[in-house]
């Protein structure tokens, strides 16, 4: 089934999210939709899948004009989207999620549905337990469930929005294999939205690049990374240069750490981070990295072992003692933990930097805010509520709240969801502090980021820690296999 969009326009307030976009997608092919954050790719896909209604423009399927303004309507014409966070219902089982939304009578035939589900899963090479509640599945498994569900609904155009965020290398190869089979054998049209160039290069037949709401170009593979980057940003970007590591004294030392969460038990974890060093923590979400970061900043109490900052045993001490010892922390949940929704930019700076007296010194807060906004190039005003800022700008505010030269900087997913340029800027800031002698420890799901910026990488797998002593000697592929549970030196033959 071929899809054509003609002259699509969509505005949100003053933002022209889609500006006269026209594209054609043929059946049996996989298209990469590329663009940085805010380029308008998600908007276009949400229009195609019925979540938004375009202000103007047309959608044609096999040359026939179609109209719809709900996801249900999109499904009826054969277009289905797998959202970045799959739109499933956590407490319902896999089978219930599969059946819900299918055209069944009031009393679904559960046995028939079970058989049909097993059939589709088998064909795509997905292994899913039908009676498992969806909230116990990984993101990768939930994506598989959604794909099966959409196919059962007779979808001929499958849109995937950033599907490779948060899934393992293993799951990614299963996903890519199944997408290729769906395109080649079943003739589905697949639109693959991503900001990860290497995924697009690996999977897609053609690419369309959006920038600032406009279509800037299309290309048929093979294309080089450099050409794509140039299309996305108007120029080629080089990562900030890494200085040679000359580590100083040990800042953070973790001895025999023993911690447990609902999902993982971590024993005998040893970590040491020295001044001026960047240590990356790799691993699937919930493999133990977060237990370590939280223990190192005093937000979680270890069951055993010791945490030493500058040689002082800080185990079990409260967070404020860690702050006083020069530890800074940037949490994974930007709005949930890092910032306070409802407070303005100026109020954030008052809270961290001008909160000594009894009364709020608004004037000084405004001054600090203006300085920092200029210095950190934040798109916002001192009186902007923090939640109105974009993700990239929120992350900039988080960086602006961190003191200029902490002893230890612990960051969780510092660039998650940011486009290449913002991510690069954030790293400039981190590396500048590092050069001034700060010890840095960060978690990330982006393997490129880990390999590019770390001196050493600690790979977490089910609570076990494997160290990669020289991050420059490891490739993204090798790191992917380590995260999936293979050991260093083990044959990567699969």
């Amino acid at each position: 089934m071929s899809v054509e969009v003609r002259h699509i326009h969509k505005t949100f307030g003053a933002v022209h999210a889609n500006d006269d976009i026209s594209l054609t997608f043929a059946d049996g092919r996989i298209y990469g939709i590329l663009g940085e954050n805010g380029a308008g790719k998600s908007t276009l896909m949400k229009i195609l899948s019925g979540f938004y209604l375009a202000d103007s423009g047309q959608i044609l399927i096999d040359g026939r004009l179609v109209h719809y303004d709900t996801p249900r309507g999109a499904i009826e014409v054969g277009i289905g989207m797998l959202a970045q966070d799959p739109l499933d219902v956590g407490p319902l089982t896999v089978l219930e999620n599969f059946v819900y939304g299918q055209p069944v009578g009031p009393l679904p035939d559960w046995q028939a549905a079970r058989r049909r589900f097993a059939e589709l899963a088998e064909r795509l090479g997905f292994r899913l337990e039908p009676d498992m509640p969806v909230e116990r599945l990984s993101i990768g498994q939930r994506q598989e469930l959604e794909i099966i569900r959409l196919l059962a609904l007779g979808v001929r155009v499958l849109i995937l929005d950033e599907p490779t965020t948060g899934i393992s290398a293993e799951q990614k190869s299963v996903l890519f294999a199944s997408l290729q089979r769906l395109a080649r054998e079943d003739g589905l049209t697949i639109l693959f939205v991503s900001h990860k160039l290497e995924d697009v290069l690996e999977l897609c037949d053609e690419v369309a690049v959006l920038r600032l709401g406009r279509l800037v170009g299309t290309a048929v593979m093979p294309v080089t990374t450099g050409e794509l980057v140039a299309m996305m940003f108007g120029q080629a970007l080089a990562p900030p240069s890494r200085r040679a590591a000359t580590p100083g004294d040990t800042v953070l030392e973790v001895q025999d750490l023993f911690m447990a969460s609902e999902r993982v038990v971590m024993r005998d974890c040893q970590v040491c981070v020295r001044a001026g060093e960047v240590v990356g923590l790799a691993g699937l979400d919930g493999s133990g990295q977060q237990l370590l970061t939280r223990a190192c900043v005093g937000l979680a109490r270890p069951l055993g072992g010791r945490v030493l900052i500058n040689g002082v045993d800080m185990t079990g001490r409260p967070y404020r003692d860690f702050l006083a010892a020069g530890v800074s922390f940037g949490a994974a949940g930007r709005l949930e933990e890092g910032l306070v929704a409802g407070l303005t930019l100026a109020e954030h700076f008052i809270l961290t930097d001008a909160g000594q007296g009894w009364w709020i010194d608004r004037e000084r807060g405004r001054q600090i805010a203006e300085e920092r906004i200029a210095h950190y190039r934040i798109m916002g005003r001192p009186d902007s509520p923090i939640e109105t800022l974009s993700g990239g700008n929120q992350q900039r505010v988080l960086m602006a709240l961190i003191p200029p030269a902490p002893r230890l900087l612990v960051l969780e997913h510092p660039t998650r969801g940011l486009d290449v340029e913002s991510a690069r800027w954030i790293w400039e800031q981190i590396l500048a502090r590092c050069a001034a002698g700060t010890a840095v420890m960060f978690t990330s799901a982006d393997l490129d980021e880990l390999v590019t910026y770390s001196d050493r990488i600690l790979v977490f797998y089910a609570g076990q820690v494997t160290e990669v002593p020289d991050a420059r000697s490891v490739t993204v592929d090798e790191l992917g296999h380590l995260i999936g549970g293979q050991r260093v030196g083990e044959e990567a033959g699969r």
Partner: protein
Amino acid sequence: MDSELARVLGSVVANATPLVIASLGETITERVGVINLSLDGSLQLAAMVAFVTAYASGNAMLGLAAGLIAGLLVALLILFSNIALRQDQVAVGFVLTLLAADLAQFLGQNYTRIPGPTFPTIPIPLLRDIPFLGTVFFNHNALVYFSFILLAATWFVMYRTRWGLALRAVGERPAAAFARGTNVTRTRYLYTAIGGALVGVAGASYSLAIKAGWANPAVMRGDGWIALAIVIFGGWHPLRVAFGAYLFTGLRALASTIQQTTEFPLVLVNAVPWVLMILTLLLVSSGLVERLMLLSPPWAQRLLRNFLRSAPPVALGTQFTRE
């Protein structure tokens, strides 16, 4: 011919009926993501309206219908102010609790302590003659039988039908329900109306069956809050919620027996059901049950999972707006 125990249990089943119906109604409402906090007031209002209507018309069925409508209207008022007027469900519900209770007192003041029509006891032929069980379950008025059917139907619809999938999905993740073609607003109105109507029926069953007449709402005062607590105790699962309602009524009966037969201080005895309720709530919400479940074999986990889950519907009390 009936044993003493059977008669006691039979009266527990009868007395628990309003609590069972009200807490099942609230379960349905909360599972779809709406919290009807007004229970304590709407129960009284429905009881009063039901009695006055039955008294004026001489027809208990008409009274029941009037009570049902009263409960339904209060519930719809909460959802309407939430969806159309963007007000907080809890705030509106709380105000309506007070308003409905006072309205019941005020409008019903001329109808207190007078006899009116009631639902008669209808022993079910054959079933009534089963020893023990017949006395416990099959020698009651129509509203008690209704509560049995309601319990089975609620469970069946919720867990076995397409409608139940939509109901649960709307309360857990409205965005996902919308993506699958469910009309979130309409579904919420529908099940809030059903839940509210059931609260109305529960109110009517006080004044038309359990404690016939509109005398002193003290009989039921507090029961609305108890029903709300029972929904939490029951982990939003209809069978467990009904079990909670029977358990609480049983404890209450036990307390009044102790009070009649011993010298035990009255005040302490009256507090027993509440204390036990708090303890069980603590037990249920501490995650202990979940942990116990993890220790059981997989097949048992599968059976128990739905039943022992105690997390509230994720979208409870929230508004849904399309992107």
